[in-house]
């Protein structure tokens, strides 16, 4: 086998061993999210995932992907004059026995790290009931000015997840003003 095929085969073997149901790295626009949504629905159905779990995974997929469209700091159209947003990131769905892992990575401005951490950290110590209560309060509250998603997105993901959301920030050495934001939901 040629070295090139060896490398390709290692990539596909790894994807298979990790039970990757879906992976996309690149640009995210609204139309791309809609098309990927169709793929994700089909993959989950073919994989035999139960209806309620499929719905939760699809919901988390949409929230994560729309976060990238709206908030990733790497925008393809710097001016964003009129056209929809197109921003960079990655999303991956894998299966681990009965659990499903949904992960996303996207660059954010380093100055936004504290704000995100302050939104996500309290969710980790909340019970399911507390998350549902916070969801109810946020649903009835006025939308924060900087938010396009009503501030409900992370609460929706926390509600659908079966374990606390995990997140991390990796400062980028090559771009001091940029940090990679990683978020993982177990469903």
């Amino acid at each position: 086998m040629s070295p090139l095929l060896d490398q390709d085969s290692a990539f596909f073997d790894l994807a298979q061993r990790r039970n990757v149901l879906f992976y996309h790295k690149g640009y995210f626009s609204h139309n791309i999210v809609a098309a990927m949504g169709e793929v994700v629905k089909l993959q989950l159905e073919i994989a035999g995932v139960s209806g309620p779990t499929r719905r939760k995974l699809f919901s988390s997929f949409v929230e994560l992907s729309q976060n990238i469209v709206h908030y990733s700091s790497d925008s393809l159209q710097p001016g964003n004059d009129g056209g929809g947003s197109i921003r960079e990131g990655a999303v991956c769905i894998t299966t681990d026995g009965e659990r499903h892992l949904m992960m996303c990575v996207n660059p954010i401005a380093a100055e936004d790290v504290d704000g995100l951490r302050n939104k996500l950290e309290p969710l980790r110590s909340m019970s399911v009931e507390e998350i549902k209560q916070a969801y109810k309060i946020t649903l009835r509250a006025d939308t924060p000015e900087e938010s396009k998603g009503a501030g409900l997105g992370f609460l929706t993901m926390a509600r659908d997840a079966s374990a606390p959301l995990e997140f991390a920030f990796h400062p980028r050495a090559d771009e001091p003003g940029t940090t990679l934001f990683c978020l993982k939901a177990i469903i």
Partner: protein
Amino acid sequence: MDNLYIAATATSPEVDFRFDQHSLLLRGESYPENAAAFYAPIIEQLRQYLAESAGAVTTVDVVLTYFNSSSTKMLFSVFDALDEAAQSGSRVLMNWYRDEEDETIFEFGEELKADFHAIEFTDRPVAHQGQ
């Protein structure tokens, strides 16, 4: 006033507001790029209709299979407008259709019932159509 019809897309629901028949329908999935921009004109026309139709009996069929977080927020405003009309003498009969297995949409329906007492709310679980 004119009826309002917006065809469904992959990410936005069908809106079929037949104001002349006091019959309103929302059907499909809702995760548009900008939920506020999608729903704001709909809510505006709905409010205008409700203002002009004091005392009417309006049927609202909601057949949404998925809505994202920002749509959820806007839907709350839709139901708020309907509840205000029902408090001031109109009747609003809401049919809340959902997959019988769908806890999320069931629970959102419960939220609506808890907040909007004047709407006559009927939960309509639909039997699951196989896999």
